[in-house]
């Protein structure tokens, strides 16, 4: 089907230089021209200023704190970025984090003392799989409703946000669930431990970001994700299975939320029903600050990580400066609007 040998005989001489078609300068193309690059520069500047202003900022304890806090948000931002690239949105991730965390903790309580105790780590593996399984079901419901039934992503996931959060309260009757059982120490090692002095959550984030980058830029699936956001009708006309790609991105988004939720159980030592309430907004903000475009077609893992880190660094800076926590919420909103504004001004300037 892809046989174009009848044209490949043409001499491969003049590929590059056309007399009348100018090449854009390198700094106006690719990564350097992206919002992600601008935000990365802003992030570095802010971090330098903060380390000058506060001696506590670069202390190992504070850095570890920042690293952990942003990793949970960062991991989910990776998944949500995928959805945003297709032109969709996932508001249900905060609730999914909570229900996956709760499911994981409750299953661990229930299987401890049963025959599974005899098999090393079986109880823990079963509970983690149950937590992720719940996330998978939520993602599948979102994906099927959006792709097959044709409901709007905003409304579907808004409804799911409420349903899942409600389930989290109903199942626990509002009480926090602590993981117990013979494997609980291993569980804490895997979710809240350190590897070579680095919190494992950061390592998970970086590994997942690297995998996502590979998938987005070097696989057909990744290309189809971008194509959906660029022109869904065109994608369908070329024979891409639009429904399957859509369902896949909502499932991956939910799974990333479930995974981050389970990590948070280890961090908190308990899964409260109000876990990660309101996180969906921070996560979407992180994706947008990092350069993902809510109209679809643009975004990437580097932006997700940088956006999540920027929000956390600024939040941390306000804490160190002793500013009231309520003002942090105001500031995060301000940064979102500023990031989008800068991008808007930049594209205005670049349009001839």
């Amino acid at each position, binding site marked *: *089907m*892809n*046989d*174009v040998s*009848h*044209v*490949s005989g*043409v001499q*491969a001489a*003049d*590929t*590059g230089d*056309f007399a*009348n*078609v100018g090449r*854009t300068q390198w700094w106006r193309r690719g990564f350097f021209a992206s919002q992600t690059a601008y935000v990365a520069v802003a992030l570095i500047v802010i971090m330098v200023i903060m380390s000058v202003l506060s001696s506590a900022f670069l202390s190992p304890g504070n850095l570890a704190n920042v690293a952990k806090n942003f990793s949970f948000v960062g991991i989910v931002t990776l998944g949500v970025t995928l959805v945003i690239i297709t032109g969709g949105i996932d508001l249900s991730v905060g609730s999914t984090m909570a229900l996956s965390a709760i499911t994981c903790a409750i299953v661990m309580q229930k299987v401890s003392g049963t025959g599974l105790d005899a098999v090393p780590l079986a109880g823990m593996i079963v509970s983690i799989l149950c937590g992720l399984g719940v996330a998978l079901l939520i993602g599948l419901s979102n994906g099927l409703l959006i792709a097959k039934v044709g409901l709007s992503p905003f409304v579907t996931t808004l409804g799911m946000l409420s349903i899942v959060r409600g389930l989290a309260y109903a199942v626990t009757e509002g009480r926090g669930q602590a993981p117990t059982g013979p494997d609980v120490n291993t569980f804490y090692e895997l979710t809240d431990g350190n590897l070579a002095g680095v919190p494992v959550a950061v390592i998970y984030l970086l590994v997942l970001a690297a995998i996502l980058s*590979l998938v987005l*830029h*070097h*696989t*057909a699936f990744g*290309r*189809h994700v*971008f*194509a959906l*956001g*660029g*022109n869904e*009708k*065109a*994608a369908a*006309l*070329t*024979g*891409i299975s639009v429904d399957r790609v859509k369902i896949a991105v909502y499932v991956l988004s939910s799974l990333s939320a479930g995974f981050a939720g389970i990590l948070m159980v280890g961090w908190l030592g308990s899964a409260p029903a109000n876990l990660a309430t309101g996180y969906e907004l921070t996560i979407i903000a992180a994706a947008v600050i990092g350069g993902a475009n809510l109209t679809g*077609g*643009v975004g990437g893992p580097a932006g997700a990580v940088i956006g999540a880190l920027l929000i956390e660094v600024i939040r941390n800076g306000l804490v160190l400066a002793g500013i009231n926590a309520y003002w942090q919420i105001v500031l995060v909103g301000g940064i979102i609007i500023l990031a989008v504004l800068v991008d808007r001004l930049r594209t205005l300037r670049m349009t001839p």
Partner: protein
Amino acid sequence: MSLLVLEDVGKEFGAIRALSNVSLTIQPGEVVGLMGDNGAGKSTLVKIIAGNFKPSHGRVHFDGREVHFSKPVDAREVGIEVVYQDLALADNLTAAANVFLGRELKRRIGPFSFLDHAAMNQRTAALFRELKSETRPDDVVRAMSGGQRQAVAIARTRLARAKLILMDEPTAAISVRQVAEVLDLIRRLKDAGIAVILISHRMPDVFSVCERVVVMRRGSKVADKPIGQSSPEEVTALITGAKEAA
């Protein structure tokens, strides 16, 4: 042997007759202009050829065999490609990514298969050279001129080794210089032995690249003659109904 033969093809939507008993023959490598006012049946005819609609009656032969398309993919499989008016390109992707969209070239590494960027860029560059278009495989479509976008859309069809390309108003919304570029692209397709049906409202385009002109009015074919034996005035008269048939 004729490439495409329509025999008494008609299409009714409920009580409305969109197309009545149209017969049409296209030879390999022939460029035919299809003209007519809005609602004359052009789109219905094209959609039957492209597999979007099944004809209510009549027969379609392609490449010597009778064909029954139930979806556009069926038509594409035998070698009929459509270049849509809005071009159906993803603006945020590169030219090469658009040309290979849905049929990416891959390399297997262990259990995974990854995109073969180099091979796709190379083949796309070769297609653009063949079309003599100044378009770079790794440029993003958003930054391209209308003519370059046409080249990308046409390169897609070349990749599929199409034998017949249906072009829906390719020159409707682009600048004069780009129109010349697109007409050149059509001539290159003809040189490569590919038949083109050009659906257009623009008389100068049809008269500069087509060998034959087919005029539709009220669901019927009212003229089908070599371009040299017709004139823009006659075609206008046929389209408006000032002249019944020719």
